[in-house]
């Protein structure tokens, strides 16, 4: 007689269970159970994990769930077969779909409808009524249930140790005999071990929004809801041995295993024939389209090789499914690009999934790991971010919502949230909680170190605090809610709900399943990532513009390859706006690396990342590339892996291959290593791998020093691993965007502006950059602009770029369209616009943007007219213009500098002049040089530079160093501020809009930095640019400092923003 626990609540019943499904299964194994059920509330979300764990340990998971009904006692349900499982899943899906996200509304009638093939256990009340009898309502319900479920219904009995156990059991037993519903013992398990009771109490508090002190009877009275040993359960029910026996009866009857779920590809993609034939046909068709009738032999060989491999692994449907999406996107003129290991194959190239010519690099098609793991290849497809939704809706429409859904992401408790929740539940003060959660420490053993606690101003001897930390440590990693994966889709042949319940997503028109990508992978389901990428939007817009204005028919594939001019431009770090390589760190790397071919771009994309930087791989690579250091390999076998990157591992794949080849990891182990790298520090699994890796490498004859270095590099990849296969796909977009920028800066700037926000730069920098490349940029105007920025006729080499209304802060697209549609022959007066129903607010925005020049009004004059609130009555209409012009002459004339400031305030950029140019005179008298003069100076010179602050960055990899980029009328200057100075000049650095620094010049080839030694806030100079009429007040000597701040206080409150200097786009800060 084996006891099987049939009522188990894991932490996937959010804020109810106190243990992970894996922990429960492990404990069951430890207690010698041969099977265990998981019954979370109205969900199957946790069962895959439990299944995987059980499979590993050789026991059996009985999938199940607890059905909490809208009315009536709850039921536990266990499917006996695959069909029964499908019905239960469909039942949950129905409940989910009729409720908002996170809720499931089920009625008794639903359960009856989907009852076939499942066993049910009804859960009785936990206590008797005042007469020591069972609630008659329950008895009535039980009869109703019995009538519906017949022999499939059982009655749960539990020993809760809350006083009347014996009486309750007796009553239930009697009832069971009377109604012929057999009793079955359960322990209503909520945690795997009694010690978890504390955490379970805490999650109860989080759920009930109370503190442990005032939770009272919301908690459980004792700690009995843990997984009890077999003998103990037998003892507790020795008066009712049938109840124990019944558990094994149910367990035996429920032989369904999740392994039986078989994923089937949707049949649409293959048409009628064999998928492999279909794929072969499409690939060859594509090959002929690309290469003509003479497909090169190398390609032919590759195609044969890959097709054979695909055939062996039966991946044809997968490729066909991806192909289908790509074809749809292409039909709709949506740009897309595949990435991932399988994406960079000849097959994908022929299918048009990727435009990277596979002959440009040498990637093994059978990505090591995939082959070993026998799981679907990895292809993510990026689409234009603005149009990704079209693709998503296409999927829903083509396959139906019952067959396609997005994969879930299980949001986990991170240490900040965990400590907040636990701290709140434990009744810590808000102040203490803030201090705990804001202290930047990652979770680690250090937490419990008295000194560390004391350092944060907390009392290390405080028992409550220690308890909070201890419970937080347990709570971290608990699932908190089911979110929506960014784009992972599951598509099936049959009903998706046969496999897994579907839930409503928070976003409208979206549904997702309860399982996340690991669950999906564990069961071998297909997943396609449909992602959005801003740069694709930009490139597509650029292609359209290039077609309209230059008659070019560009695609990702037909852009001329290997153009030296493009690489020259890139080598000079002229990359504002270019995909991936526009950041300052990239820009200072480019002149050192000097990319000359496509693969150099792949390296460029991968090298400026925290992984290689933390792993100290950048400099060795540069030295080797420049021939300053010999290219060596620690062993001939590693040469194969590291040859492309001159012996320095730069990609995630290389790191893993080193583990396999160098340290003797198996493919699966290396894969586990890769996974753990992502969550490295959080879980403390590292050390076991560290030992294994180092010992393995020592055994294979590597030095310990090298082994440790490799491990450090792996750690670096941990947080931000970047696989080569992704870098390759990105590099193509880098090349394409560079090519556009190089040959059609007008097209590129226009497309970029129309795709914002994305990338690093503000519109001002993009416009300035375009002007520098010879593009004439024209201001936004009511009569000449559209919502989007647009190209006008050619002037010189390029088209003129007309700014659109989208650049004006506060304008809406609808307003812009209204203006466009009623413009007709053009507006001649503001009254024209008003008569067409354009609102005063919009008119004021346009006036602020100085967009009435074509009517002959500057911004101030326009505003004067727009300001009139009363509409003239019809009688006086004849005289309206005169009355509008009244006193217009009385307005003070605006200086150019004022105009520039207002341009910035309204559009974040000015075409009239650069703000710094107005104070150049003063700056010059102070010895401040222009940014472009720096290149004429020598390394080590002391200089003063000033400019608007564009970006402030303190990357985590740079030990407290702050990088600042400032801009003056001639260009940008890069500043480096060391930590000590940063602390000293903190206010200046953070508060200045115009920053002046003194420092030492550092010139390294084309890369110029100023190592800052002093900072000054010169924002005051900008303030003089407004002819305030009250300069006297600004500059008058103040007798007491207190008064100065006092006056500035009132001003900052009531004066328009520009006094505060806020008009300049705030520098990007530390992100």
């Amino acid at each position, binding site marked *: 007689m084996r006891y099987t626990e049939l009522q188990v609540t894991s932490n996937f019943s959010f804020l109810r269970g106190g243990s992970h499904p894996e922990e429960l299964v492990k404990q069951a194994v430890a207690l010698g159970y041969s099977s265990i059920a998981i019954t979370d509330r109205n969900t199957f979300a946790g069962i895959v994990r439990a299944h995987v764990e059980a499979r590993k340990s050789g026991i059996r998971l009985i999938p199940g769930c607890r059905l909490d009904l809208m009315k009536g006692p709850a039921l536990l349900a266990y499917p006996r077969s695959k069909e029964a499982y499908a019905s239960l899943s469909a039942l949950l899906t129905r409940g989910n779909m009729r409720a908002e996200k996170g809720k499931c509304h089920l009625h008794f009638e639903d359960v009856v409808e989907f009852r076939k093939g499942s066993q049910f256990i009804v859960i009785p009340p936990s206590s008797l009524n005042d007469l020591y009898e069972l609630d008659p309502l329950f008895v009535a319900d039980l009869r109703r249930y019995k009538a519906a479920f017949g022999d499939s219904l059982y009655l749960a009995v539990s020993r809760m*140790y*809350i*006083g*009347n156990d*014996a009486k309750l059991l007796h009553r239930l037993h009697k009832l069971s005999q009377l109604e012929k519903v057999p009793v079955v013992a359960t322990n209503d398990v909520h945690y795997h071990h009694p010690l978890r*009771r*504390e955490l379970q109490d805490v999650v109860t508090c989080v759920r009930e929004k109370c503190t442990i002190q*005032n939770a*009272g*009877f919301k*908690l459980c*009275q*004792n*700690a*009995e809801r843990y997984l009890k040993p077999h003998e103990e359960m037998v003892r507790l029910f020795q008066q009712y041995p049938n109840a124990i026996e019944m558990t094994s009866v149910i367990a035996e009857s429920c032989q369904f295993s999740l392994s039986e779920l078989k994923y089937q590809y949707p049949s649409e993609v293959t048409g009628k024939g064999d998928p492999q034939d279909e794929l072969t046909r499409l690939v060859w068709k594509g090959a002929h389209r690309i290469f003509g009738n003479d497909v090169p032999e190398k390609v032919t060989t590759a195609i044969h090789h890959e097709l054979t491999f695909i055939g062996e692994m039966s991946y044809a449907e997968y490729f066909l499914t991806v192909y289908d999406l790509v074809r749809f996107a292409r039909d709709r003129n949506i740009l897309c690009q595949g990435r991932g290991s399988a994406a960079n194959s000849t097959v994908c190239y022929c299918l048009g999934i990727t435009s990277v010519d596979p002959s440009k690099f040498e990637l093994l098609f059978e990505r090591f790991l995939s082959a070993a793991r026998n799981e679907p290849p990895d292809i993510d497809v990026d689409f234009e971010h603005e149009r990704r939704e079209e693709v998503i809706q296409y999927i829903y429409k083509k396959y139906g919502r019952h067959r396609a859904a997005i994969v879930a992401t299980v949001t986990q408790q991170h240490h900040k949230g965990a400590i907040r929740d636990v701290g709140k539940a*434990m009744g810590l003060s808000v102040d203490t909680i803030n201090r705990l959660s804001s202290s930047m420490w990652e979770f680690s053993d250090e937490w419990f170190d008295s000194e560390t606690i004391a350092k944060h101003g907390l009392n290390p001897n405080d028992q*409550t605090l220690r*308890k909070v930390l201890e419970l937080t440590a347990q709570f971290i990693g608990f699932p908190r809610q089911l979110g929506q994966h960014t784009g992972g889709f599951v598509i099936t042949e049959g009903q998706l709900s046969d496999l897994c319940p579907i839930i409503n997503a928070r976003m409208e028109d979206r549904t997702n399943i309860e399982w996340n990508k690991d669950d999906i992978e564990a069961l071998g389901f297909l997943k396609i990532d449909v992602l959005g990428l801003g740069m694709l939007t930009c490139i597509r817009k650029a292609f359209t513009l290039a077609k309209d204005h230059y008659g070019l028919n560009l695609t990702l594939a037909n852009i001329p390859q290997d153009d030296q001019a493009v690489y020259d431009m890139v080598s000079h770090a002229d990359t504002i706006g270019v995909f991936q390589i526009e950041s300052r760190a990239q820009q200072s790397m480019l002149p050192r690396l000097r990319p000359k071919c496509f693969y150099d771009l792949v390296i460029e994309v991968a090298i400026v990342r925290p992984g290689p930087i933390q792993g100290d791989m950048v400099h060795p690579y540069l030295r080797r590339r420049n021939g300053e250091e010999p290219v060596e390999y620690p062993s001939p076998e590693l040469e194969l892996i590291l040859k492309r990157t001159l012996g320095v591992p730069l990609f995630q794949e290389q790191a893993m291959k080193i583990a396999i080849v160098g340290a003797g990891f198996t493919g699966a182990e290396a894969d586990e290593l890769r996974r753990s790298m992502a969550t490295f520090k959080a879980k403390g699994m590292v050390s076991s791998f560290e030992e294994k890796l180092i010992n393995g490498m020592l055994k294979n004859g590597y030095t310990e020093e090298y082994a440790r270095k490799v491990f450090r590099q792996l750690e670096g990849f941990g947080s931000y691993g970047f696989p080569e296969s992704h870098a390759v796909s990105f590099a193509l977009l880098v090349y394409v965007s560079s090519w556009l920028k190089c040959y059609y800066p007008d097209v590129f700037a226009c497309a970029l502006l129309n795709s914002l926000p994305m990338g690093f730069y503000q519109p001002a920098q993009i416009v300035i950059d375009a002007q520098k490349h010879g593009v004439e940029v024209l201001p936004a105007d009511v009569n000449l602009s559209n919502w989007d920025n647009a190209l006008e006729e050619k002037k010189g080499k390029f088209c003129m770029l007309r700014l659109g209304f989208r650049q004006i802060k506060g304008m809406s697209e609808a307003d812009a369209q209204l203006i466009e549609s009623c413009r007709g022959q053009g507006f001649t007066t503001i009254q024209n616009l008003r008569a067409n129903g354009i609102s005063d607010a919009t008119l004021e925005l346009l006036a*602020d943007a100085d967009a009435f020049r074509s009517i002959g009004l500057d*911004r*101030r004059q326009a*505003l*004067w007219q727009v*300001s*009139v*609130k*009363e509409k003239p009555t019809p009688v006086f209409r004849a005289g309206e213009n005169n009355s509008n012009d*009244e*006193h217009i002459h*009385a*307005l*003070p*004339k*605006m200086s150019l500098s*004022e105009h520039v400031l*207002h341009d910035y305030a309204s559009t974040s950029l000015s075409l009239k002049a650069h703000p710094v140019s107005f104070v150049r005179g003063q700056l010059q008298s102070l010895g401040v040089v222009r940014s472009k003069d720096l290149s004429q100076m020598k390394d080590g010179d002391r200089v003063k530079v000033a400019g608007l602050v564009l970006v402030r960055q303190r990357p985590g990899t740079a030990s407290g160093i702050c990088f600042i980029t400032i801009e003056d009328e001639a260009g940008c200057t890069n500043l480096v501020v060391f930590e000590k100075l940063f*602390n000293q000049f*903190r*206010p200046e650095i*953070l*508060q200045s809009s115009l920053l002046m620094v003194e420092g030492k010049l550092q010139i390294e080839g084309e890369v110029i930095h100023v190592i800052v030694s002093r900072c000054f806030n010169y924002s005051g100079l900008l303030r003089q640019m407004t*002819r*305030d*009429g*009250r300069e006297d*007040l600004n500059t008058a000597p103040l007798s007491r*400092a*207190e*008064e100065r*701040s*006092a*006056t500035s*206080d*009132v*001003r*900052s*409150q*009531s*004066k*328009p923003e520009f006094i505060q200097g806020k008009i300049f786009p705030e520098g990007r800060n530390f992100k």
Partner: protein
Amino acid sequence: MGARYISVWFPHLRTDWFALGDPTFHNRPFVLRTTDHGRMVISATNIHAERKGIHKGLVLADARAIVTDLEAIDDIPDISVRILTELAQWCVRFTPVAAVDPDDGLLLEVSGCAHLWGGEQCYMHAIESRLNARGYGVRLGMADTPIVAWAVARFETETLRVETHQLRNILMTLPPEALRIETDAIQRLHKLGLHRIAQFINMPRNVLRRRFGRTLLDQLDKALGDQVDVIVPVVLPSQYIERLPCLEPVATRAGIEFALEELLVALCGKLQREQKGLRQAVFKGYRVDGVTIETKIGTHRPTHHVAHVRKLFENKISQLEPGLGIELFELEAKDIEDNPVEQERIWEKSSGLDDERLNELVDRLLDRGGIEVSRFVAAEHYWPERSFKKSVDVSESPAISWRTDVLRPSHLLSPPELIDVTAPIPDYPPMLFVYEGKIHRVVKADGPERIEQEWWLQQGQHRDYYILEDENGVRYWIFRLGHYHDSNYKWFIHGFFA
């Protein structure tokens, strides 16, 4: 002579007020914080923080990036008005008409006051220095109209007095903000380049009205005194103090009682009219020899019941030493609470805890001293010792009612007493136990009910409770401390059932 106004501006009103409570704040930067859309935002700064460039509206984290050791205290909503009301009441020493001018100022109507202080200059100086002495940084403006006084205090660089003939000229130099119009209009004026009132004050009124609305014109008129500005002065708090001077010094108990009665009737009458009740009262006598004697009483609930308060004082009167005689009696209600008059019920006598007489009894018992008056109310805890608590407040309504779903003894031993028990293991009820030297044979038993420690309060073993009935039909509540696995468990008796 026309009206004169002083506007008092407190640039750091709230931080000054907070600093009063903690003098260490005087010399370091600190700010008040409040949450706005889930972020901590600065709602006020002190002078030191402001000098470092911290201003209102900044996100606290950003401010901390600038000033790393910035102290932040939680702001108290609406505290400004409270502080200002107090300050306005205090300002009554300077003028009878003092008004709160939110968010950070006072407005004083001072016509005809200044000469008492030796002229306007001295008058302003007196106000400024007294407020400074109280711990508030201020700046003053004085003018013929409230608006100009307000503006001058804020937009001039030092405390300034505007003579009647300067009014228009000074106004002209001020920015449009000085008119206290909506931000929208102010911004538009600046955008149009109209940075000073002089630049538009002479424009035709209809031109201004059409663009900036009626308010601008009204405010201009008020500033120039062409339209009257209304000022709402603060009302002084009423005082609950009654005095009774005597023609002849009183030295007898009868005389004192008579005086007390007089004062009580007056005071309680006033309290009743205002629906208040006293919680504390002080009865004072000023003796002819200059000594003040006093006695105090406290009540349990707010009351204005003459007889009750008299009763409480009766025991205390003997403590008063009249000496040669008392020439002035004073009765002050110290602690006042609202005591709304309830609808009297004719047919229903209020009873139980609501009975007024119960409260009066409690007051009298407590007044005797040495007697503890309390009752038990249910508390939401499983652990028996914590499942009730003592309450001394008759009016306290317990959060939960007594549990009826489980049996609990009516008499609980404190602490539980160790007993010897014979019980079959593992967790069957005892067969017999020895309590106070007597053997009790168990004839009926129920249990166990397991109650676990409240781990956040104390650590230890759980208890398994049993309800037992001995051969005499007496029922006991006993428990085993600790699990039967452990050899060191103990048995205790914890209570008796009725």
